[in-house]
């Protein structure tokens, strides 16, 4: 059977499905999306919704039949109505039927499923590539064709999470730097992770793929309409797994190109300070920001850490001991623990700043200043 005839069979089933839906369960097929998938904005997501509706319908009908038969005998064949028990306990015809019919239903479900799956798998003909890397607990996007890269992390204020402030409309589903993508282009994603397994999931795009450290998974999408689409990390990745959302901003191609060049300028600007010598207060001020973005998730906003899991920075032997050790653990991390190497994530200035901040803030007071050049020398 060719794929195209599979498709037409699928069509027949769907029409059949719709008729059945209208008769039996108007609630399901016609449901608003609050009870169902979010509104699809790619062809694949649309296909998935259709497939989902189809199989939901089939299993609902099966369950209704099962329920009706059971309920009929519960009502009619009860002792209190004086029903006498029959004695039969075998019937080959019946048993063959209820083995074969479910099998055929399964075949009918497998056909459109296979077609959709093959379609999702085909990354050929993509027009741009974005590498997505999961970190505890943020995403990094590398636009391989545009030379742009940045981190994206939760921007919901801590106060909202701790119920000290009213929660905003996009509570937990908002980030500092959304991933910006052009509409109408086939985009290939290379998904990987830096520390533990994460999964990149945006329901409206119909894309979910695990990010496995050391391996690369390929997926693709082609967004039909501009808009903002939100998703979340979908693989347990530690303490803040619930706090690493994804925000996709789909824009026109022009806007995308503009955005990309602005990003490139920004990256150049960020590198700029690397050569010069910084004052302590500038470093501390900048370090405080970096700390809040990169380190506070584990070591705590005030440097208290989480006892037994993440060491406190306040009074830490390393953060108050020799500078070399401090540089070493921050730049190279510590294998086998959640402390990852930051030399690949932060630039020289940020590294120097955060270390200076840890040594002079968070209750520490060593007076040491670490310059970007020192960091650079260690790379």
């Amino acid at each position: 059977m060719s794929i195209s005839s599979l498709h037409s069979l699928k069509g027949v089933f769907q029409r059949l499905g719709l008729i059945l839906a209208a008769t039996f369960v108007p609630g399901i097929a016609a449901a608003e999306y609050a009870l169902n998938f979010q509104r699809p904005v790619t062809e694949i997501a649309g296909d998935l919704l259709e497939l989902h509706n189809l199989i939901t319908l089939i299993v609902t009908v099966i369950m209704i039949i099962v329920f009706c038969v059971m309920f009929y005998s519960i009502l009619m064949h009860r002792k209190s109505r004086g029903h006498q028990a029959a004695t039969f306990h075998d019937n080959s015809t019946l048993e063959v039927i209820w083995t074969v019919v479910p099998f055929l239903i399964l075949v009918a479900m497998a056909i459109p499923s296979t077609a959709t799956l093959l379609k999702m798998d085909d990354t050929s003909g993509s027009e741009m590539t974005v590498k997505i890397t999961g970190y505890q607990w943020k995403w990094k996007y590398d636009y391989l064709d545009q030379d742009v890269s940045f981190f994206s992390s939760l921007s919901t204020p801590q106060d909202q999470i701790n119920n000290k402030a009213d929660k905003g409309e996009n509570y937990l589903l908002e980030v500092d730097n959304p991933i910006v993508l052009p509409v109408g282009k086939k985009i290939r994603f290379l998904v990987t992770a830096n520390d533990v397994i994460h999964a990149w999931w945006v329901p409206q795009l119909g894309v979910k793929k695990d990010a496995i450290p050391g391996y690369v998974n390929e997926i693709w999408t082609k967004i039909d309409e501009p808009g903002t689409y939100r998703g979340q990390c979908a693989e347990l990745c530690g303490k803040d797994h619930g706090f690493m959302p994804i925000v996709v901003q789909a824009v026109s191609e022009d806007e995308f190109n503009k955005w990309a060049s602005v990003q490139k300028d920004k990256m150049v600007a960020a590198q700029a300070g690397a050569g010069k010598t910084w004052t302590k207060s500038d470093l501390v001020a900048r370090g405080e920001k970096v700390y809040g973005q990169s380190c506070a998730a584990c070591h705590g906003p005030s440097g208290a850490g989480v006892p037994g899991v993440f060491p406190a920075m306040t009074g830490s032997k390393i953060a108050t001991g020799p500078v070399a050790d401090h540089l070493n653990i921050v730049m190279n991390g510590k294998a086998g623990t959640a402390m990852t190497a930051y030399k690949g994530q932060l630039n020289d200035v940020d590294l120097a700043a955060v270390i200076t901040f840890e040594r002079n803030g968070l209750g520490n007071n060593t007076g040491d200043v670490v310059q970007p050049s020192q960091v650079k020398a260690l790379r």
Partner: protein
Amino acid sequence: MSAAKGSYYLPEPSPWPVITSVGVFVLALGFILFMNSISAGSWLMIGGAAIIVILSAKWFGQVIGESEAGTFNDQVDMSFRMGMGWFIFSEVMFFAAFFGALFYVRQLAVPWLAENELLWPGYEGGWPTAGPKGAEVIAADSQPGPNQFSPMGAWGIPALNTLILLTSGFTVTMAHWGLKKDNRGQLVVWLFLTIALGITFLAFQAYEYSHAYTQMGLTLGTGVYGATFFMLTGFHGFHVTMGTIMLIVIWLRSIKGHFTPKHHFGFEGVAWYWHFVDVVWLGLFVFVYWLV
């Protein structure tokens, strides 16, 4: 088939199992502390192991006593047989997990890493390998420099060990025939030979390990090759050790005059176990040592 006619055998209440459980608990707790560098750990481990050893001796001692007193009928004998047989089956599945890991990394994971230019540029894969960041593999039998390792060849000690284990399978069968013919001399002598072969095997393996660590740069930490090599051969070696201890026990019992030509489940259980260890070794020899 179903029950032997006549009476069933039911043991009295017994303190051994629950005390053994305490031993297991103490051993596990000690092991955990030990791994986390807490010094009480090793003492607890010794304590737990001691409880288990003493209790096993008591428990098995009681069963042996009952057996020699003729307490067990055919039905009990059959229950023991099934118990031992299915226990060995579960052991086979334990090894299957590690063999599965070996096949998976060799056939799938390493090739995937090798073709992954984005993350591991320049890594070529192949087998043996310690992975893209691990030590580099050099030709077998050459002297490794720092961050290099030399894989274990098949035709030295491992081939000899294969021969030893196969021979021991034969000797234990000779002992069994001796027992069946009620030729106690044959039983005791061939059992002794089997034990000697088992110990020789272990000695060779110990030598091989120390050679690997000191001369070949090959350790448990040498990437997936080192991990699969030492875990598979290590668990096998552990089973040979257990098997040898069991052989020693039945050897001593044979000397004492235990077992009859008809009734000797204790002997057969150990023999089955020994054959199982033997078969696993053949798998190891082929897939771990030979086909690299």
